[in-house]
């Protein structure tokens, strides 16, 4: 049980790290939001699941309640985080931010926009 918890927590940490690197290194707004939305959701779930498992180490009612509450937070994040990402990207699209392409003259333009 403890090993599963540790492995899942480490996987969550790795995904959080990848998210952070993605936000910092990706070239434009859309790619950054792509990293933030997907990575954040998955790594939060990967962190919450082992926490629920860990609090459930002993079978009784109180531990079960704590585990269920943590999982409910996970459900909420699973719904809210992609929607928030979608909303931000939608707002960016409407504000007229152009997606990044490999052409050099647009690259400099997008660096200013981002």
């Amino acid at each position, binding site marked *: 049980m403890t090993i599963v918890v540790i492995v899942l927590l480490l996987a969550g940490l790795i995904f959080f790290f990848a998210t952070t690197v993605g936000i910092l290194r990706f070239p434009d707004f859309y790619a950054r939001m792509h990293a933030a939305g997907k990575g954040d959701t998955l790594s939060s779930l990967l962190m919450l699941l082992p926490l629920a498992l860990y609090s459930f180490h002993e079978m009784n009612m109180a531990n079960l309640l704590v585990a269920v509450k943590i999982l409910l937070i996970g459900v*909420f994040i699973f719904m809210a985080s992609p929607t928030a990402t979608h909303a931000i990207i939608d*707002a960016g699209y409407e*504000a007229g931010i152009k997606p990044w392409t490999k052409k050099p003259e647009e690259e400099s333009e997008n660096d200013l926009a981002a």
Partner: protein
Amino acid sequence: MIWQLDLSVLTLIVLCAFATIMVKDLLSAAIIFGAYSFLMCLLWTEMGAVDVAFTEASVGAGVSTVLFFAAIYQTTRMVRPRRSAQWLSKAVGLTAALLTGLVLVIAEKDFPDFGNSFSPASLHLSPYYITQTLHDTNVPNIVTSVLADYRGFDTMFETAVIFTAGLAVIAILRRIKKNDRYELPDRSVISEGYPDTIIRFVTRQIVPFIQLFALYVVAHGHHSPGGGFQGGVILGASFILLAISYDFKIVLGIMNEKTNILLGNIGVLIYAGIGFLCLLLGANFLDYSMLSKVLPATDTVMARSHGMLGIEIGVAIAVMAIVISIYLNVASHGKYDKGL
């Protein structure tokens, strides 16, 4: 307490505070201020003040950030450089801040150390609450019992302060006449988009659960962190979410101006009314133990618990109505036609 964690969070808080002041873009400043509130909330959780952290998370990071956004949307986004007397005002402000800081640092020396078990508060007041609360009021959450029972008078006027804030916002911003004299040019902050199906659908699914959670926070404030303020703010925030992502008009249909003001009044009235009921029954103002004469099948201890629940409900109603009212006024510039 883990001092390494405390130190790193505190460092980030100070950095956020500086960034909030330095940033020229007010929208960014509002977001950084939200991050500051969340870090503050982390710090308080880490110090064991979970109720305060909960309030900070719902009020500081949640609703006030949205209110800042609404205000920025209605005014201007960028800080404009001042034309004259810039250095003079900066020098005066810096001197005032430094002097105040100096006074605070000097005064801080007379305080007992953090967590000192021989300070007056830890010798007399805190032990009484810790040992006697459950016996006196049958409420396990000491913070709720101190807030709503032992210092109920203080909390009543906190509710009155929030009510007054709502009234002030209405008095300043609300405009009945349909003149657009104050239409400001910078509307580019948030684009007025078409209705988005995904956002609308998810909002529709989530809002009932948010409201259910808010009611749980209000009703369960005796046993877990939470209470009237947090629950009321979450209820108000659910309506604000509806107004932002669904439709401004729908919220106006549910909670129009009259309902809001009425509910704010009723909330404060419930609080003060319970106080006066205690007075009528021959006890002190807000001494809930006498309510056992009115409530069936309660002794004086359980009556205090029920009295707290009553005033928490009053606080929640008032705070919800005032938060919604402030948002509607700020976001629509007092015209109640369209918001963010």
